[in-house]
């Protein structure tokens, strides 16, 4: 049992350190050129198409994928380094991140060859954006409850229904979605869902924005009305998407993005307390640094498991459970410590703005990518409790 919970101390190999230098230099150039402000995670528009293309041109998209699809056949550990440097710098990754992390790997595994040849190289060039269509009104984490129907017709399927909480649907070129192709059976509630590649900006698809409490706009409702999808856009097995969708989640749940989303407030707190902190600030910062270090060690370890070809579903769930709760609490702990920061701290205003935004961001962190409750169910299953 405990054998499943080992997180071996994977070290990043030398090529990762060289790559890290390149990524930092690139980000510094982009910051200097005004592409984005690393101190402003709350900027209005995080979709910066030119930035995506530059990242693609550097070879930092589709890093682990085969070269024949535009990939670079590099390791998961190299990809890990790129992801964490982008995240810590608050780089505008929205346009490419979902495709790179999740949609591309799904296409690699389940799409027909000509679709792979058409789409994957464009992801690698940073040209196209993906959204993920899983949740529906009143379904959420309960994927079985999805009702949006795909009805067989000549040469394809007609889609009717609504997806919701779909990040980036308003800018996405494609969506990978699950639709109901058959009713669930009595023996198997998981039966009857199929994964499809959806081309957005086509007739029968309407995207309605949903505002967020942060003031940002990222979620959408996506309404399908007799939208046609051709047969060759079916991904994997008809009626068998459940297993495909769950194995996809190991990629989604263990990366550095799962504990670094509010990390910027910690950096800014260290700046605000200065070189000679009082004992309370020092202890508070020390604990937070020990915690983030530990989570990073766990996350790197899972990247090592992915590199070794394993499917660390339970380990990834543990990293996300601990990681998202940490990044959710972080702005509140920083707020407590910031109460004692000198009025004269030059970055006080930046810190306050960041805290305002991070505290508003916090509630979503334990919901996106699998709620805490769902993750704990997966971990409990791994422990043999269900």
């Amino acid at each position, binding site marked *: *049992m*405990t*054998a499943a*919970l*080992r*997180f*071996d*101390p994977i*070290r*990043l190999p030398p090529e990762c350190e060289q790559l*890290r230098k390149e990524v930092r230099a690139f980000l510094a150039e982009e910051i200097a050129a005004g592409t984005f402000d690393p101190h402003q995670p709350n900027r209005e528009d995080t979709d910066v198409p030119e930035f995506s293309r530059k990242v693609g041109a550097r070879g930092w998209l589709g890093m682990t994928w085969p070269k024949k699809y535009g990939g670079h056949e590099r390791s998961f550990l190299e990809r890990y380094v790129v992801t*964490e*440097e982008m995240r*810590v710098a608050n780089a505008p990754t929205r346009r490419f991140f979902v495709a790179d992390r999740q949609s591309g790997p799904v296409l690699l595994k389940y799409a027909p060859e000509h679709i792979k040849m058409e789409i994957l190289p464009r992801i690698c060039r940073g040209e196209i954006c993906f959204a993920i269509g899983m949740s529906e009104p009143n379904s959420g984490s309960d994927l079985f409850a999805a009702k949006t129907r795909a009805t067989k017709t000549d040469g394809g399927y007609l889609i009717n229904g609504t997806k919701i909480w779909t990040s980036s649907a308003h800018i996405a070129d494609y969506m990978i979605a699950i639709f109901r192709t058959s009713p669930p059976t009595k023996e198997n509630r998981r039966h009857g869902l199929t994964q499809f590649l959806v081309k957005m900006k086509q007739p029968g698809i309407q995207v309605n924005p949903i505002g967020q409490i942060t003031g940002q706009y990222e979620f959408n409702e996506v309404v399908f009305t007799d939208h046609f999808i051709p047969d060759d856009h079916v991904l994997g097995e008809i009626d068998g998407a459940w297993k495909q969708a769950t194995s996809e989640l190991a990629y989604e749940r263990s990366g550095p993005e799962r504990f670094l989303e509010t990390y910027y407030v*910690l*950096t*800014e707190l*260290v*700046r605000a*307390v*200065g*070189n*000679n*902190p009082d*004992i309370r*600030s*020092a*202890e*508070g*910062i*020390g*604990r937070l*640094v*020990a*915690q*983030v*270090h*530990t*989570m*990073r*060690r*766990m996350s790197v*370890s899972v990247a090592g498991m992915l590199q070794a070809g394993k499917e660390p579903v339970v*380990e990834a769930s*543990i990293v996300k*459970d*601990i990681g998202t709760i940490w990044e959710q609490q972080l702005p509140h702990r920083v707020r407590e410590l910031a109460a004692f920061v000198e009025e004269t701290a030059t970055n006080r205003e930046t810190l306050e703005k960041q805290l305002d935004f991070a505290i508003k961001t916090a509630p979503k962190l334990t919901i996106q990518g699998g709620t805490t*409750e769902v*993750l*704990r*169910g997966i*971990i*409990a299953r*791994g*422990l*043999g*409790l*269900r």
Partner: protein
Amino acid sequence: MAESDNIVAETAEKIFADLADAQTINRDKKDEWKAPLWQALTDAGLPLAWVSEDCGGSGASLAEGFSVLSAAGRFAVAVPLAETMLAGWLLAQAKIASPGGEMTVVPASPRDRITVNADGTLSGRARGVPFAKVAKHFAVLASDARGDLSIALVDAGKCRIESGLNLGGDPSDVVTLDKVQPVAIKPAPKGFDQARLMLMGGVARSLQIAGALESMLEISVRYSNERVAFEKKISKFQAVQHNLARLAGESAAALAAATSAADAIANATAFNDEVFLEAVAAKIRCAEAAEKGGAIAHQVHGAIGFTIEHILHRYSLRALAWRDDFGSDSYWAVELGKLVAQRGADELWPLVASR
């Protein structure tokens, strides 16, 4: 139990399983289990694992020794194995041969100091020294008037020892040296300091805490699958499942932090900021995990886990006690916070992402 990494750890694991089974220990109110266990450990060369063969030890690698400590934590053994290993390691830093028998290190807290007097004798007071009462010898780190550090082997019989007990019921004593003539004394190697000794001890304790948490997870999962309440196994209640998932998370975090720190020290060429971060973070995070994880293990066990007859307290109370040795998590958090502040905000991420 996690599978062992090497033959040295496998040997330790087997000895613990044969002679330090928690139920046997609990039934033996007179502690008669300790002598055969210590003898078996000694016969296997484990107390002096970190001492080279020419200094009387068995010359295991740092990594092998660390995995022995993980196993010791999984069994929550209450004999001075970690302490004797640390003492042998400290003496070996100054190429002082280790004697046989139980040892421990002095001082065991970052703020205590032992002084080398002008006449070469040692004076000072050290609190919270684990197993001082049963140790035959102490490995002492002491500084002279100029601040130069020495490592000394001291006969425990020549020191005053006030007995105390830690939360887990193991000896945690006050040791006073009043112009004690050491058996041997040599200069500490260049660059060695008290922080390094404390952090080596801290990593040992982190591995022990992580091991204890692994066992707490295992016995809690097992108990939840046996205990029936409201006509169901309690493992079938979602609230219990979620608590156990959190315990698994704390256990995994402790193990990840502790094994990463052990690996960092075992492979370090210098004791730099990056190695400091690893060692300190492990002590802090494992202490937090001991608190959160131990509370869940008790919650799952209900009243039975609160009884002296049950084995749970062997793990939960020791894990809590080990937080305090070789510098508490609060002490090290302050030190880490100071280091981070001195390096400055823009150097924090490069430190965290250094390996």
